[in-house]
């Protein structure tokens, strides 16, 4: 995303990084305050608003019966989309999803899918249809680290979601079969200092970032390096370890260690 940043600010952030400090006073591995509210969109089967500092995303989950993919008749379907709407940043423009929105959506989707967060085999319906789960991420305010906010929003909205069985005549409404709790942690590397939850300024001057998605046991479910910078093998190994333990902490704080019910 093409945000510009003044040279002087860039130098300032680099100078701070050399002393292991950050412009907003956080520790290198410290997140901005995370706030999750669920169920604020009554029309959606599940919803969540996630704020990480000033970054804000709203995730709506729609669940409806539909046709399965022909090659997987006994599994439910997940479809993930991200809208980088122009109200969220001066650098976003109207139009169909660009590569950034598509990348974001696909990383969120992979986290949910590959971690097995939803047991798709439990989404079949008696009439040969399956539940289709649409995860739509609406970015409202882009102040850095959209990846983690979107992934967290998707998880919270899924946990909050109910299958609307009653509306379609399949018995009483029921929660989705949630089996895992994938949490994304994004890091940037500034001059050898690894920072978690990069702010917009930090993410703009760092030439690349690494998102690590891990599950309840700390194992990895997904990863994505993004941006034109490079990372050494050692840096990557450090980030992955740090991210996996940070994800546990975030999960404990927000969901009390479990996502059941």
């Amino acid at each position, binding site marked *: 995303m093409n945000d510009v940043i003044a040279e002087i600010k860039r130098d300032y952030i680099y100078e701070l990084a050399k002393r292991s400090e950050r412009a907003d006073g956080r520790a290198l591995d410290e997140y901005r305050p995370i706030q999750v509210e669920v169920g604020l969109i009554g029309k959606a089967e599940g919803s969540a608003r996630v704020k990480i500092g000033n970054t804000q995303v709203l995730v709506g989950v729609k669940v409806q019966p539909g046709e399965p993919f022909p090659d997987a008749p006994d599994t439910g379907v997940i479809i993930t989309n991200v809208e980088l709407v122009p109200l969220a940043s001066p650098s976003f423009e109207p139009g169909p999803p660009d590569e950034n929105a598509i990348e974001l959506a696909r990383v969120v989707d992979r986290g949910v899918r590959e971690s097995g967060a939803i047991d798709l085999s439990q989404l079949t319906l008696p009439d040969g249809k399956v539940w289709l789960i649409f995860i739509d991420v609406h970015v409202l305010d882009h102040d850095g680290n959209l990846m983690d906010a979107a992934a967290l929003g998707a998880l919270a909205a899924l946990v909050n979601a109910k299958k609307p069985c009653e509306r379609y005549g399949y018995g009483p409404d029921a929660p989705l079969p949630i089996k895992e709790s994938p949490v994304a942690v994004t890091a940037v590397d500034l001059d050898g200092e690894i920072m978690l939850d990069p702010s917009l300024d930090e993410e703009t001057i760092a030439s690349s970032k690494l998102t690590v998605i891990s599950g309840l046991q700390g194992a990895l479910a997904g990863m994505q390096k993004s941006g034109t910078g490079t990372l050494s093998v050692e840096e*990557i190994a450090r980030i992955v370890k740090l991210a996996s333990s940070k994800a546990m902490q975030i999960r404990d704080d927000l969901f009390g260690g479990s996502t059941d019910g």
Partner: protein
Amino acid sequence: MEFMKNGKRIDNRLPNELRPIKFEVGALERADGSCYVEHGGNKIMAAVYGPRAVHPRHLQQANRAIIRYRYNMASFSVEERRRPGPDRRSIEISKVSREAIDPVIIKEFYPRSTIDIFVEILQADAGTRSAGINAASVALADAGVPMRGLISSCAVGKVDDTVVLDLVKEEDNYGQADMPVAMDVRTGEVTLLQMDGHLTLDEFEQALELGKIGCASIAKMQREALIQKYRGEEDE
């Protein structure tokens, strides 16, 4: 599905063995640089045009060249016909592949211009983004684009709880994890890293190490292919 038998994989390879790879430098006439690669069942053509003028002009940068990368799958490249044109998958792959190559190109030499990289997947058999990046890297060198190094890429993954190098289609589709890596082997800088599936932290470290080894072998082949072509020209 059973992937490992007596330490061998479904195509009889060892866990740390690459598929057969063949580079053909300068396979196309009109492009400024090109490379055809066969990597196992993958057949991929890469072409480079530029540095050349940027259209549309508002994309141009005053102090450097821009890099564009188009990864495109032929409709006949896979079992079930693919609808032609970019889908979400190929848009993402184009983005991460561009970012994988971009760091080694010396863009400051060509302000206001573009270097366009086109990668056509003619036949796909897992690992197309990696094989495409390998071919693109060689095509850039063939075009004479100044670079700090060559980018080499391969996938690592996990099947039957074993970390393996360079997945084939079945291993990719039904295996436990897939992790494409790209790097400049000379400096050890990783320029692409993606992963999906399930890896413990130990398995991840093993996988990254194996990826490094795979990239190093590929880098050697890329170099040799380039040297072979240009040595031939000197002799004539």
